[in-house]
């Protein structure tokens, strides 16, 4: 059992880190395609070795620490950001039980009965990394970026949390495996359209993606919280951001798009991860598409939007869902 866990953990962590590398490539190529450019295509076939080249470059870069920075926190901040991103997907089911030669292998690391609470708790940690990075850099741009990140996360965490409640109520469980199984006939996006939209917007803000990428805001704050970071520390922030992107896409697919569910998945459980993977790719494509299209929303508008529009709608959605469930379920 322990060995199985270790193997699965290693697989997940490796998948997420490799995924991070290739999401950057996916983003750069897709963005280039949308912007009548070519994108990186020199390193390897179709530029497939570009992430490797980038990684090597970043590892060999000099790591600068600003003179007046708080060195301990400055070093710790990228770590605090990246670890939650790595462990977040532990509770996400990749598929059902697979039988190979009589041994049953579950295609998920663990099925915690409070899976969703775990997700919310872990995602909330990474904001500390960003805030601390902004604060410890001793740079005004970084400070503004860190402050924005804090304000943004607080405004969105609530709406995000409330958007989880719909699927929980319908499935009657906080375990992600149960939620996926409850969607075998109909994905929750059809039952919870409002919840889905709220989750989508809040998750964009959660992972600091355009149009909610205020903490970075290249055009205003140059790079925001990671302006003073270089080398591998800088790469860790990017890693956290992209891993969270994959994680959010996975969570979204699990909660609203039926997770690993798809045609024939009952007969061939091995198809589960394939379906999940396909859904994640589509989800990421939409994120990239938005980045290519939309201007950035302003910081104060984002807060107003979060508190005055998203939060009440999310609350209303919970209320309506609960009332309908009581009436229908009797």
């Amino acid at each position, binding site marked *: 059992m322990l060995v199985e866990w270790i193997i699965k953990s290693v697989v997940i962590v490796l998948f997420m880190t490799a995924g991070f590398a290739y999401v950057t490539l996916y983003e750069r190529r897709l963005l280039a395609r*949308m*912007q*009548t*450019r070519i994108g990186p295509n020199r390193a390897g076939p179709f530029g497939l070795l570009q992430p490797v080249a980038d990684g090597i470059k970043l590892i060999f870069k000099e790591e600068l620490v600003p003179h007046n920075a708080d060195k301990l926190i400055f070093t710790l901040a990228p770590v605090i950001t990246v670890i939650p991103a790595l462990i977040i997907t532990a509770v996400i089911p990749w598929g059902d039980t697979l039988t190979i030669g009589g041994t049953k292998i579950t295609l998920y690391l663990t099925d915690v009965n409070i899976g969703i609470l775990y997700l919310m708790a872990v995602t909330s940690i990474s904001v500390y990394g960003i805030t601390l990075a902004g604060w410890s850099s001793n740079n*005004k*741009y970084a400070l*503004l970026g860190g402050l924005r990140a804090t304000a943004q996360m607080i405004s969105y965490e609530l709406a995000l949390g409330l958007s989880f409640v719909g699927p929980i109520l319908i499935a009657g469980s906080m375990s992600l495996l149960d939620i996926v199984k409850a969607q075998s006939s109909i994905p929750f996006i059809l039952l919870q359209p409002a919840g889905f939209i709220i989750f989508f917007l809040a998750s964009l803000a959660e992972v600091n993606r*355009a*149009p909610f*990428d*205020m903490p970075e*805001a*290249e*055009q*205003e*704050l*140059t790079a925001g919280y990671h302006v003073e970071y270089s080398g591998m520390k800088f790469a860790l922030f990017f890693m956290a951001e992209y891993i969270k992107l994959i994680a959010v896409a996975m969570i979204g697919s699990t909660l609203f798009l039926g997770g690993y569910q798809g045609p024939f998945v009952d007969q061939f459980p091995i198809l589960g991860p394939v379906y999940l993977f396909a859904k994640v790719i589509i989800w990421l494509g939409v994120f990239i598409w938005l*980045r*290519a*299209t*939309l*201007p*950035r*929303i*302003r*910081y*104060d*508008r984002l807060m107003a939007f979060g508190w005055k529009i998203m939060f009440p709608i999310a609350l209303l959605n919970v209320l309506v869902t609960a009332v309908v469930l009581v009436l229908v379920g009797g």
Partner: protein
Amino acid sequence: MSDVREVTLEELRHLVSERALSGETMLLNMGPQHPSTHGVLRLLLELDGEIVVNCIPDIGFLHTGVEKNMEAKTYQKAEVMTDRLDYLYNIGNNLVYSMAVEKLVNLDVPPRAQAIRVILTELSRIASHLIWLGTSALDLAAMSVFLYGMREREYILDIFELVSGQRMMTTYVRPGGLWRDVPVEFEDAVRNFLKIMPKRLDEYEALLTKNELFLDRTKGIGIISKEDCLAYGLSGPILRAAGMAYDLRKARPYSGYEQYDFDIPTQTDSDIYARYLVRVEEMRQSLRIIRQALDTLPFGPVRSNNYKFVPPPRSEIGTSMEALIHHFKLWTEGFSAPKEYVHAAVESPRGELGVYLEGDGGPKPLRVHYRTPTFVNLQALPLLTRGHFVADVVGIIGSIDIVLGDADR
């Protein structure tokens, strides 16, 4: 270096408010190396949270001494420097300088040269507005528009390369006409561009004009009243967005602009969005002017035949002794201009671009001074940004459409 004046910190204190001195507000140095200051503008922002209390623009990081250098060159050679001023409106810089020289020495320009000048300056205006559209949208993080704008600008730069051999530093417009006539491919290239561009403009508008997020970032931001515009001497799209239809192409037509039928777009809101609408419409009007100019393009010479000031054609040098002498005199000594001063002005994409030229009787100018729109328009930045968010400051800088080469000569 004895005349360097030392300024104590005390003397600069009045630039920021009392609250900055006590540490209540934060002073943020924006630029000169900042992605949204369009080159090397430096802003000292006094921030209360993220709200701008005061903004102090600091220019001069791109100072190249072009005006001073021009005094050391003959009239023809000095023109090469003018390309480098406003690097997005090179042909217009050439044009205004040539117009000043023509005024100073009384040169006539043939109608064909006038019409080609109009076509090229209007193309130049579109190219400049495309860069503005792209960069100001990029400042608001709508990044794709930038690359689409660059794509269309490429057509224009190709046309410039076709006529002059250079994409940007053309020096194609010369005192007395043009360097040479346009090649035969010119008309097709421009017509092709005229065919493509209107559709592409619609595409940009589809991305931005009714985009809620874009409206949110541009409406009601960076407002300046018409009176303030006039008091600060602002010109160009900023003034027109404030409701005043002032355009030198109509007010004091040059190069035969009076023959063409076009409108001056105006708006009354005077915010970033109004400036956006004005500039987009200006691109359409420019296309209209180019189409008319191309349809009525007269045949004939493109250079004045006054060989005292304009080099004779290469073919004549081999057969005419007089032409050889003129050629030799012009390229060794240059021509002498009277001891007078003149002023000429054109409508640049950013506003009124004027040049003051003073001759000293010899072949070199005594003084050349450019009245550049960016330099004047930048004055209003503190007024425009006060009370707005840092995020809006970049939008406002974008809406002024600054070119630092234009501000620091």
